[in-house]
């Protein structure tokens, strides 16, 4: 699949924003490292909303006809893309009400704040789930058609969220002892899940050129693709990366997204070092997202010469 930069940026930025909201709520509900002041809750949420909004704006660059984007909320009963849009938009009013409560000085002891906390928490988890499901439902791309896909999207979002929360707590001058353990837990879980995904995409397990052409009892080869230059189909689905480059990039993902943050975060003592490690993890996850698209093989490539997908 063609790795579109707007979509890569969107899924990573929004994913980390929703992850930050999730982790923020976990940390204040369970009083991790002594919680936060009302003002700090508001600042943290605004950072999350900034990331989410930047991501959503970038996603609209992917649309060829954005003036109809508002219609994308209409088919939430069947389409995960529509569900994602509905969830992402309804997230805003609830979060603003929630922030208003904090601003007015109503903390978790207030019934309405508590109710809104639950709703915002559910929303932030569900948007990342919907983003993953949008890819996982496609039977045409066997590599994505697995429950590992939403698991990866959710875990990587929460991992970046917890790193962001750690950075912000350094910035506020708050303790991070328990949060560091949570960070390591997310780094380990997300890293393991990604490893499982890399094993999963290794072997072709979808349709073959034989079932695509219905000649299942003979060898089938593409003789002529029928066009002299690129088409929409080859531009969108014909993307191929060399095996060697994929391996290099996978190592880069592991190094930047998981290994470097996990090794150095427990030692980091300042806002600057935490920020550097968080940005390193972002770089790793951006490469991960690029690979997610670049490695995926669509079944239509069977009509362009691939033997298996």
């Amino acid at each position, binding site marked *: *699949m063609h790795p579109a930069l707007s979509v890569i940026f969107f899924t990573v930025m929004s994913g980390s924003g929703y992850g930050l909201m999730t982790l923020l709520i976990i940390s204040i509900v369970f009083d991790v490292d002594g919680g936060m002041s009302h003002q700090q809750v508001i600042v943290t949420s605004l950072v999350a909303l900034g990331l989410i909004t930047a991501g959503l704006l970038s996603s609209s660059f*992917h*649309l*060829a*006809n*954005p*003036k*109809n*984007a508002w*219609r*994308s*909320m*209409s*088919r939430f009963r*069947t*389409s*995960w*893309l*529509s569900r994602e*849009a509905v969830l992402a938009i309804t997230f805003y009013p609830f979060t603003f009400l929630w922030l208003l409560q904090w601003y007015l000085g109503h903390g978790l002891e207030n019934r309405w704040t508590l109710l809104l906390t639950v709703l915002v928490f559910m929303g932030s988890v569900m948007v990342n789930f919907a983003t993953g499901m*949008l890819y996982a*439902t*496609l*039977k*045409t*791309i066997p590599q994505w058609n697995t429950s590992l896909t939403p698991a990866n999207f959710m875990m990587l979002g929460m991992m970046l969220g917890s790193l962001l929360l750690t950075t912000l707590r350094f910035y506020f001058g708050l303790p991070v002892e328990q949060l560091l353990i949570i960070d390591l837990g997310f780094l380990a879980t997300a890293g393991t899940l990604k490893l499982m995904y890399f094993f999963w995409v290794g072997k072709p397990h979808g*349709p073959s050129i034989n*079932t*695509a*052409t*219905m*000649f299942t009892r*003979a*060898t*089938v*080869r*593409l*003789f*002529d*693709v*029928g*066009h*002299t*230059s*690129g*088409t*929409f*189909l080859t531009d*969108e*689905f014909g993307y191929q990366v060399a095996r060697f480059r994929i391996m290099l990039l996978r190592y880069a993902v592991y190094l930047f997204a998981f290994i470097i943050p996990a090794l150095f975060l427990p030692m980091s003592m300042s806002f600057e070092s935490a920020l550097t490690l968080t940005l390193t993890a972002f770089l790793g996850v951006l490469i991960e997202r690029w690979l997610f698209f670049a490695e995926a093989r*669509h*079944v*239509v490539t069977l*009509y*362009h010469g691939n033997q298996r997908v």
Partner: protein
Amino acid sequence: MRLGLVIDLDVCVGCNACAVSCKQWNTSGTTGPLTDYAPYSKDPSGVWFNRIRNFEIGDYPNNKTVHFPMSCMHCEDAACVTVCPTGASYKRKEDGIVLVDQDKCMGCNYCSWACPYGARELDREDGTMKKCTLCIDRIYDKNLAPEDRQPTCVITCPAHARHFGDFDDPNSNVNKLVRERGGNALMPELGYRPTNMYLPPRAVKQEPTVQKDSIISKVKDWVNRSIAR
């Protein structure tokens, strides 16, 4: 009704006439235009509803070239419709035709990702998704003579490789052909239940591609060589 096409791979000669007539008819049709990008350059490209690929089946010398026209299969379980977030893609209840409403489409490409058969192409000029309409603006047109109320690709095909009909009627021309010739769907394992069916080449005696060393072939070879000189 469940309208669709049967494509006879035994007689398709790969002439591309169906694709050209499709483009000609539909570019001024309901979902037109079928925009071309740089049509007179070295790398012409553009939107097509129907594309023909050529495959080699079997191994030399028992091999055969098969020409493979592909357009929308008007699937029963059309995931392109279920994934569309705007409701622009829809499947008609009355005849099973899958269409895109250009006024609602936001050009997100998601439906083209969900289609296994490469039937959907985004028009970069107007930013909407385009696909085969089963010539909906011909097949119901009362102003046309009854024999002309068929998709233009079917009428145009010089080899009669394309047939149009109702798959819900057990005695329709298309169902008879599928029964008699053992018609099949492409990639049935994905579960889209495509309506269009493909007829495999007829079983005939295998003729190796290489000629035997007969006297006639030797004479032919000699003639060919002397003409070439």
